[in-house]
């Protein structure tokens, strides 16, 4: 418990460094990640994060010790080179993008591993620090390093803010951006550069293997909470910062734990939660919506049966048994009966003994649905040139989703008609 208090009071300057550093880098890569995800280039992030390894090792071999600025430069060059080669291969051969990414990723990573084993076997004195680049160790963020990484993170954020409009346009509508005269390919290059920079900032804390997740996971999660790109960017940054905090906290509590995997697990939980429970887009929400829609469909179909049974005689207050009503429908008995009960709850039908009949309100509602059905049928034959015998099935679906506004519009378009294509009367309310 004391440790938790120590951590969150931030009294220790080291903790301050680690926490600030991890949150800043996680947030900045999450911001860049939004554009990567929107451009459907998530796997490029994967390629870059694996490909920086040889650059880091080369810098280490060159300097002979853990020289952070040199390593950043090395990582930047090799990550950037990897993207350029992937692009070159896909443009100049029949190799598809996915295969090109896989090959370059593993060849670069393999080269990194070769250099890493070379360093290990030749027994450099300070090689221990190199290990933390692979799975990340936020505790390795100290003093000057934090300042270096923070500067890069701030550069990232400022660049994204400056070119926000341009990135937004190219992400959603590249051809349009081109016609506006935006330098699309140069913007692409800038985004690539930002991606590599974001990966480079994260390598100390998250490690090269899992850095891809810090780019794309918060962004993919944020996509589920909004359709507005500004909001997505802000949400993504918050998710990123939170996972950074969580990762730093866990590796403070258990120093033997690598930070990177915990950050990734934290942001993955946020992502999976978003995929399922986000309002409007989450799958639980969608499932609930679908269920509600099925229910209203069932109810409206029953009301229609009452109307159809009463139509020949023009008397809509008739009482019918469940079996009589079910002759017209193919849904199961349980579903049918529970829909009847729901209708009763809404005061649309009444029960008399074993039989059911429409209330005044129910009559109006049933006429409304039949009216929508027939208006739509007429619209299809008149404007879509569909033959009359084919329009029924489509109208069966559309009748449940037409709004009053659309109903009015249809009437105006069709000139307030009386009869549908099958010569049945379109009821008026």
């Amino acid at each position, binding site marked *: 418990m004391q440790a938790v208090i120590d951590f969150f009071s931030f009294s220790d300057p080291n903790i301050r460094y680690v926490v600030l550093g991890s949150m800043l880098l996680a947030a900045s890569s999450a911001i860049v990640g939004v554009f990567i*995800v929107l451009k*459907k280039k*998530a*796997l490029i*992030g*994967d390629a870059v994060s*694996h490909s920086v390894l040889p650059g880091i090792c080369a810098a280490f071999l060159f300097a002979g010790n853990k020289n952070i600025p040199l390593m950043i430069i090395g990582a930047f060059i090799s990550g950037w080179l990897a993207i350029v080669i992937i692009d070159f*291969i896909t443009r*100049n*051969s*029949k*190799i*598809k993008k*996915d*295969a*090109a*990414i*896989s*090959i370059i*990723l*593993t*060849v670069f*990573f*393999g*080269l*990194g*591993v*070769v250099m*890493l*084993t*070379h360093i290990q*076997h030749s027994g450099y004195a300070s090689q221990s620090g190199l*290990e933390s680049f*692979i*799975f990340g160790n936020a505790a390795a963020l100290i003093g000057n390093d934090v300042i270096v990484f923070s500067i890069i993170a701030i550069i990232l954020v400022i660049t994204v803010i400056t070119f926000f409009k341009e990135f937004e346009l190219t992400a959603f509508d590249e051809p349009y951006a081109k016609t506006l005269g935006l330098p699309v390919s140069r913007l692409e290059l800038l985004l690539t550069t930002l991606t590599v920079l974001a990966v480079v900032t994260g390598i100390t804390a998250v490690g090269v*293997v*899992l850095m*891809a*997740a810090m780019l*794309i*996971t918060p*962004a*993919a999660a944020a*996509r589920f909470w909004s359709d507005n790109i500004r909001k997505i960017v802000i949400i993504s940054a918050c998710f990123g910062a939170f996972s950074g905090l969580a990762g730093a906290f866990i590796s403070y509590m258990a120093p*033997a*734990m*690598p930070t*990177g*995997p*915990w950050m*990734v*697990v934290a942001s*993955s939980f946020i*992502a*999976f939660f978003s*995929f*399922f429970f986000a309002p409007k*887009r989450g*799958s639980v929400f*969608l499932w609930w919506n679908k269920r509600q829609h099925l229910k209203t469909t069932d109810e409206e179909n029953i009301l229609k049966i009452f109307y159809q049974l009463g139509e020949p005689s023009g008397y809509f207050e008739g009482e019918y048994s469940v079996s009589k009503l079910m002759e017209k429908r193919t849904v199961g008995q349980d579903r049918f009966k529970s829909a009847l009960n729901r209708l009763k709850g809404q005061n649309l039908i009444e029960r008399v003994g074993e039989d059911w009949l429409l209330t005044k309100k129910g009559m109006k509602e049933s006429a409304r649905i039949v009216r929508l059905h027939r208006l739509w049928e007429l619209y299809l034959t008149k404007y879509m040139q569909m033959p009359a015998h084919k329009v029924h099935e489509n109208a069966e679906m559309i009748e449940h989703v037409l709004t009053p506004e659309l109903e009015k519009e249809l009437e105006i378009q069709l000139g307030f008609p009386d009869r549908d294509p099958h010569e049945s009367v379109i009821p008026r309310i």
Partner: protein
Amino acid sequence: MISFWIILTGALVAVSAGLLGCFLVLRRMSMVGDAISHAVLPGIVIAFLISGNREPLTILIGASTLGLVTTFIIEYLHKKAKVQGDAAIGVTYTFLFAVGVILLSLFAGQVDIDQDCVLYGEIAYVPIDTLITASGMNLGPRPVYLLGGLLIVIVSFIIFFYKQLSLTAFDPGFATAIGISTVLWHYLLMGLVSITTVVSFQSVGAILIINFLIGPPSIAYLITRSLKRMLIYTVIIGILIAFFGYQIAAYFDVSVAGCMAVTTGIIFAACFVYTSYNSKMKKKDIVMTQIPQSAETV
């Protein structure tokens, strides 16, 4: 003798993975292979913890199941939860790999795998793990037998079901029309990829296996248009990679699996330069033969 066993192991991994990889490359699913290879890590660790490092078969089944589960999760996120395809892959496998690394550091003492092994395997230690009969006869390294058995399974799978595999890869619509279930063959293929990853894990690690899955088939894909030749070339390239990769590694005293990946890169670069040079020459030929013709008509 030691170098023979290491090269043999490498070649077995490269050939088994490469043969399956041909179909991944053709289906444009390389990244799913990548995802599976990362995601079996937690499966391997958990299976190790439960079985206590004693029964290879339990580990094999347990860990391969997780590979299949990964494919299910990716499909589910993509189709049902409407996560865009590339993000679904990226989120799923990084999560599972992170869980694997965490489990490794939690149970560091109890599991006989370290982080280096995850990254690039320990093919150099393969000859130590020998199979000795009750009478004390040395039959060679255990992984070689496991990989050999796997290769036989994969080769017979491809030979017996060649029609189904090639049809579902090239023309899924037609395959479905004549009654071949694309879903079934998709999961059978992914299941074999998972098993291969798990069996090869000790030798080449979770990350570099993707090099053996995608590297040789892509090189073969560059130089031929026939599936049968692509499979044969993949085998040859796989063996070459294992041989030269080991030679380089032995010379410089570095990671064998890493060197095999670098060798793949070199061979790929050579073939890439060769094929693009060739196609440029062909284009030139066409231009050269066209000019006099048009001159005549004028």
